[in-house]
């Protein structure tokens, strides 16, 4: 018996009791990984009393005997919603279904210390500003450089009014800040994102908001604007003491999930800075804060990938989790694969490998698999591996030696940037800025 077996075994045993219990049964897996059973009430109600009580006894006996240390003892095994009325607990519609008999289901309620945000749903209604999240599983894949190049490109690119775009860049990689200093050098504002989270917990966030933004000199000579909100500023001082408090799920009015706090920060910055485009440089890997940037911002997400085993293994964990996401249809078409540091040698073969890996990732989890002769659902997403318009189809950023020690504020490298990013920027304009049809 291990963590994986315990849930499967408990699900089988609970399914066998569904017809006698006549209700949805929830397996509650606590922070230690131990399992309990959540039912509506200890009372049989309109159900035959003996049948109901016998089913409870039998279930308790079998679960405790089979799961051992992975279950609670008999007298503590059952939890009842009637005793937990103050909590908002999931329903069969909002929880992963482990087993079903067609009428009732066995569902999972997983108590997680971290990581629950990867199950969150995106906000309904589009944000007023176009938002883009840059996300990677591993560091060093050119995420911050891409944010820099993209903001430079957008500030130069004319809108319908003839002016360049107003870009707002947020450095959300609080554990490993980067894009703020890349774009601003030493000319940082007084405060950064880490300061806001600490001040906001005490209701003082608005006070520092105007001092959290500085303009990058990369905007010079353009009619656009590159406003940057770094992770820290010149007066941040105790960075670690602030970082250690930044993820508090508490705002000025009491408990508030972290993604909701970030949502509020971004909306307040947008109201202050009036950007056309917001770039969110996310933290690396499967952290809750990355989930907030990917799912809670209503953003299109650029998923950076190099064709390595580690990258695909990590993406597979995430996409497999999303396979059972009750609301995956709301965000799957806003995920865009991006092939970073594509080598100059054997480019085509490398690219095809990357594309096929990405395709299998999307196909096995978030794409619909419509069989021949079957009527596809109205919002079906069913691309072929080679379909350039597919979300999986990697947009290539070519590796270029000229960008290895790229310091854009010292010397902008026009030729290497164009050589590396030309194709990607063209695609970005056409598809994500909605200035033309898909490639």
């Amino acid at each position, binding site marked *: 018996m291990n963590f994986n077996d315990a849930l499967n075994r408990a699900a089988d045993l609970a399914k066998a009791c569904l017809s006698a219990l006549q209700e949805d049964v929830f397996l*509650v897996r*606590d*922070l*230690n990984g*131990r399992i309990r059973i959540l039912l509506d009430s200890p009372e049989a109600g309109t159900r035959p009393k003996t049948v109901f009580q016998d089913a409870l006894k039998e279930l308790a006996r079998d679960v405790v005997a089979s799961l051992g240390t992975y279950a609670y003892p008999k007298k*503590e095994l059952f*939890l009842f919603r009637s005793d*937990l009325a*103050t*909590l908002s607990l999931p329903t069969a519609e909002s929880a992963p279904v482990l087993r079903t008999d067609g009428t009732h289901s066995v569902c999972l309620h997983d*108590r997680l*210390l*971290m990581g629950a945000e990867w199950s969150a749903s995106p906000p309904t209604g589009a944000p007023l500003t176009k938002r883009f999240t840059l996300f990677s599983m591993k560091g060093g894949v050119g995420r911050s450089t891409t944010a820099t190049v993209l903001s430079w490109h957008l500030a130069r690119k004319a809108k319908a009014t003839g002016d360049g775009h107003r870009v707002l860049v947020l450095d959300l990689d609080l554990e490993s800040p980067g894009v703020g200093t890349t774009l601003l050098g030493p000319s940082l504002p007084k405060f950064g994102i880490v300061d806001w989270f600490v001040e906001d917990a*005490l209701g003082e966030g608005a006070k520092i908001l105007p001092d959290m933004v500085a303009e990058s000199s990369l905007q010079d000579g353009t009619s656009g604007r590159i406003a940057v909100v770094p992770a820290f500023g010149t007066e941040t001082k105790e960075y670690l003491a602030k970082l250690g408090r930044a*993820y*508090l*799920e*508490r705002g000025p009015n*009491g*408990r508030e999930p972290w993604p909701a706090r970030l949502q509020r920060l971004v909306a307040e910055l947008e109201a202050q800075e009036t950007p056309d485009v917001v770039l969110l440089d996310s933290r690396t890997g499967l952290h809750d804060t990355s989930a907030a940037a990917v799912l809670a911002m209503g953003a299109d997400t650029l998923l950076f990938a190099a064709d390595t085993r580690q990258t695909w293994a990590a993406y597979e964990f995430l996409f497999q989790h999303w396979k059972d996401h009750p609301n995956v249809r709301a965000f799957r078409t806003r995920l865009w694969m991006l092939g970073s540091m594509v080598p100059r040698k054997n480019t085509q073969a490398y690219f095809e490998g990357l594309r096929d890996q990405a395709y299998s990732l999307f196909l096995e989890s978030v794409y619909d698999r419509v069989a021949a002769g079957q009527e596809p659902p109205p919002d079906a997403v069913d691309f072929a591996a080679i379909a350039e318009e597919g979300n999986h189809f990697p947009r290539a950023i070519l590796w270029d030696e000229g960008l290895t020690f790229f310091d854009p504020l010292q010397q902008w490298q026009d030729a290497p940037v164009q050589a590396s990013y030309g194709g990607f920027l063209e695609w970005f304009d056409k598809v994500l800025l909605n200035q033309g049809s898909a490639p």
Partner: protein
Amino acid sequence: MSLDYRDASNRHFMDGEILLNSNRYPNADQLYGLAAECSLKAVMVGLGLQVTNQGAPRDRAHKVHMPELWMAFQSFAEGRLASRYVESLSHLNPFGDWTVDQRYWLSNAINAERTKNHRNAATVCRESLALAVLDGVCR
């Protein structure tokens, strides 16, 4: 006699409800303060508070009633696990106008509004405890 803060939290709260329904505000109010205290102490024990063999807190700072316990709980909580249970508690102490000594006060000293405020605050503490039970942090 060993202590069981979770059981005591339930008892004080349920009895408080009976008294509130009969407009017996002073003793209902007393019980809501005790229910809140027991809920927070149960969570603190789950988070590793050092206790005696009988289950009472070892440190004098934690052997307190409301309103002191509200702040003691916030100072005690540290780290991501504890923050789950402290995040729903307000910085402003809702038991600032409650004392265990009010059991000696005149019967007209405590009104419905004050009792209901303390009931709301006790409910927040009990939600924290319910979360900790669901998480497997409290038994």
